[in-house]
């Protein structure tokens, strides 16, 4: 009974932080009738099971390996449609078995899709170009219904706002988003702040970024992730991005894994 209760408690609120980034690499395509696809290979490791501020079960880890399939179409520069479909290659978590040991759960298969309609207002100034964005969001449940699911399988609606600009050497992006869900999943509010330094080696375009995300959930969960990213554009079609984020602060409103790192390798193609 205890095993079942603990498992379900963890399962009910096990979820990922929805990334505020949009394909392709948050940048493209800016031109009319442009489109692109992006694949992200994500690996996440969480060290402990947390409840509130404290480590409830030290060394009870969670490892998640995901592929994200994403795409974008730009009608004209002010209207885009984007989709994100995650696929869980393998997820493994350790939970207490109620007898002082661990039992291990696995998950794989489709995750919940996200559709967005970014509406953009661009501006071009001397030495600076950027945009304001308002973005209605829709979460479409595609995940299964096992006792352990990385994605929660619930309909959701959200709204995102962002402001970004670039200069020849610097880039800045800030965004805020809010999600409300259909059933048990608590609502979420997220903030993002990205700062980038641009350079142009061997006639390619590169950028080093420092990115910070903060997520607050209605159940009291707080997560602050931050870390470096590297973007490289070596031809007009192909774009690559490497990212590492560390959990600098984790507070879990319900029993869930935390205190970890995530690594992402993205490859985007734009036409």
């Amino acid at each position, binding site marked *: 009974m205890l095993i079942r209760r603990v498992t379900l408690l963890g399962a009910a609120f096990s979820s990922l932080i929805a990334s505020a980034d949009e394909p392709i*690499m948050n*940048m*493209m*395509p*800016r*031109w*009319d009738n*442009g489109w692109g696809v992006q694949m992200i290979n994500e690996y996440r490791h969480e060290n402990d099971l947390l409840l509130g*501020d404290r480590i409830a079960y030290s060394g009870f880890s969670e490892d998640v390996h995901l592929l994200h399939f994403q795409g974008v179409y730009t009608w*004209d*520069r002010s209207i885009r449609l984007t989709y994100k479909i995650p696929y869980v290659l393998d997820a493994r978590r350790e939970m207490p078995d109620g007898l002082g040991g661990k039992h291990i759960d696995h998950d794989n298969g489709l995750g919940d899709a996200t559709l967005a309609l970014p509406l953009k207002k*661009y*501006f*071009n*100034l*001397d*030495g*600076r*170009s*950027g945009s304001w964005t308002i973005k209605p969001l829709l979460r479409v449940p595609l995940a299964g219904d096992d006792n352990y699911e990385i994605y929660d399988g619930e309909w959701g609606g959200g709204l995102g706002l962002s*402001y970004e*600009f*670039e*200069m*020849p*050497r610097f*880039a*800045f992006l*800030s965004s*805020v988003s809010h999600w409300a869900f259909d059933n048990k999943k608590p609502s979420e509010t997220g*903030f*993002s*702040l990205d700062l980038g330094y*641009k350079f*142009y080696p061997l006639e390619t*375009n590169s950028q080093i970024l420092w990115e*910070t995300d*903060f997520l*607050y959930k209605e159940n009291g969960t*707080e997560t*602050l992730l931050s870390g470096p990213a590297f*973007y490289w*554009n070596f031809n*007009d079609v192909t*774009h690559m991005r490497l990212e590492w984020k560390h959990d*600098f*602060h984790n507070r879990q409103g319900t029993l869930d894994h935390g205190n970890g790192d995530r690594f992402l390798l993205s490859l985007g193609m*734009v*036409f």
Partner: protein
Amino acid sequence: MNLIKKSVKNWAAIMVVVALGVTSASAADGDPDAKQEVRNVAAVKLLKEHKDMSLVYVKGLVCPSCAIGIRVKLSKLPFVDSTRYKRGIDMDAKTQLLTIALLPMVKANAEEVEKAITDAGYEPVERYWLEGDKLKTTTFASVKKSK
């Protein structure tokens, strides 16, 4: 430790404040790497060194990745020599100068150039040419209308 935790919890507020600060600071033009005088010098140098090309100042052309659309749109135009530069187009994020390689003895169509740059999400301001050693400019129609 408690102090660190408290500070961390204030991150959201800090990020919002930073975002608002940067937003208000960015209402004016940026601090371009190249002022107009520097751009003019660069334009004269380019025009003297290269033949069969059109040179355009594109406002906001500060991100070569975001501006790929300019190349996508312009390289399809019939007067562009796509064998030169990168598919016929060279972009300088510092000076915001766009160089279009033209086929020999073929003249660029200013309206098509203007439309291609606008469709790519940028603002063509003026194009340059040399009269002797003197730099001359012609403002694009959309800029004239907005004045």
